[in-house]
């Protein structure tokens, strides 16, 4: 079964973008990560062998892009451009302040935790999260329980520090 890139983009880009936003907590970085992911999908699509679901496969690319992509960006953090982009993001991005707050809170978690919790919020079954992340289901259950608690704490304490 072969897939049409445009169709995949239409179907998955919003979800992948949400993953990039919650991973980076910043629109500028998220834009970069999102574009990097789709370039990788474009280049790897001819090699897709239907060994997993196409969604699982795209999520893996996105996660791997986020994991190695943000290191470079961290060094640039807090320069004027970033601060400006954050302001624009806070002012104009999305119609809800609460979701922006949630993205930012998720980005304060450990890297793997950001990914896992985003997949949970996307309502992916544990089996699929395990397949995407390569973590065993049992281990995943323990982790998810802990991450949920941690996220609630961060969200509650948001803005207090």
């Amino acid at each position, binding site marked *: 079964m072969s897939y049409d890139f445009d169709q995949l983009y239409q179907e998955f880009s919003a979800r992948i973008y949400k993953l990039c936003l919650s991973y980076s907590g910043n629109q500028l970085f998220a834009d970069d990560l999102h574009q990097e992911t789709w370039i990788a999908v474009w280049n790897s699509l001819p090699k897709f062998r239907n060994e997993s679901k196409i969604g699982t496969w795209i999520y893996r690319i996105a996660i791997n892009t986020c994991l*190695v992509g943000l290191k470079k960006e961290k060094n640039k953090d807090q320069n004027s451009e970033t601060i400006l982009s954050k302001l624009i993001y806070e002012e104009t991005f999305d119609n809800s302040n609460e979701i922006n707050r949630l993205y930012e809170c998720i980005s304060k978690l450990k890297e793997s935790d950001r990914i896992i919790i985003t997949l949970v919020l996307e309502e992916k079954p544990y089996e699929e999260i395990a397949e995407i992340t390569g973590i065993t289901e049992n281990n995943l259950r323990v982790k998810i329980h802990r991450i949920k608690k941690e996220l609630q704490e961060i969200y509650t304490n948001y803005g207090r520090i």
Partner: protein
Amino acid sequence: MEEFKDFENLWKKAETKAPTKNTNISTIKNNRMKLKNTYTKGAILLIITGIFILVLLFNFDARIQTTPIITSMVIIAAVCFLQAFLMIFTAEKISKIDETQTPSFHLKQWQNFRSFQKKQRHWNMPVYYLFLSIALGIYLYELLKNVDPWKMILAFVITYSWMLFAYFYLGKREIKKQDAKLDGIITELKSLENQFH
């Protein structure tokens, strides 16, 4: 937000729009491809340099085409080709990194690549300097064999002093800096990988 369920509802309601698809997506390179291209371009430049040296050699006046001159220039061209081969090999290693694997495996691939880079820098520099010193020595001797011995000695002293300074001071300092940078990257990749166990 008392319950996790509230986060789930908020997530579902969020109308986050993804950026529109870039129409030139087939022509844009991602970071991995850019890194690979740096090596490929470097290799091409080195191959062109090597070929240029050989072309120059064949176009030399017959009087200058002595065995030592030919030997030294061939050594320099060979160094260029070897270096180019190494760069192509490195580019191949980068292109083999598979972004569709599990995060742990993918991070391991990057760790292996960075370790390879670190090892390669350590043996690459001495070999490069050794060949370059031999080639330059032969070349200088042949060029200056008819001048006053003190002038020849002076030329050798200046050339090799600079090379020793470049190798033992500048080169080692650079290696140390690069090692620290690569160690930092490897440690970070390892700590990320450990999160997926």
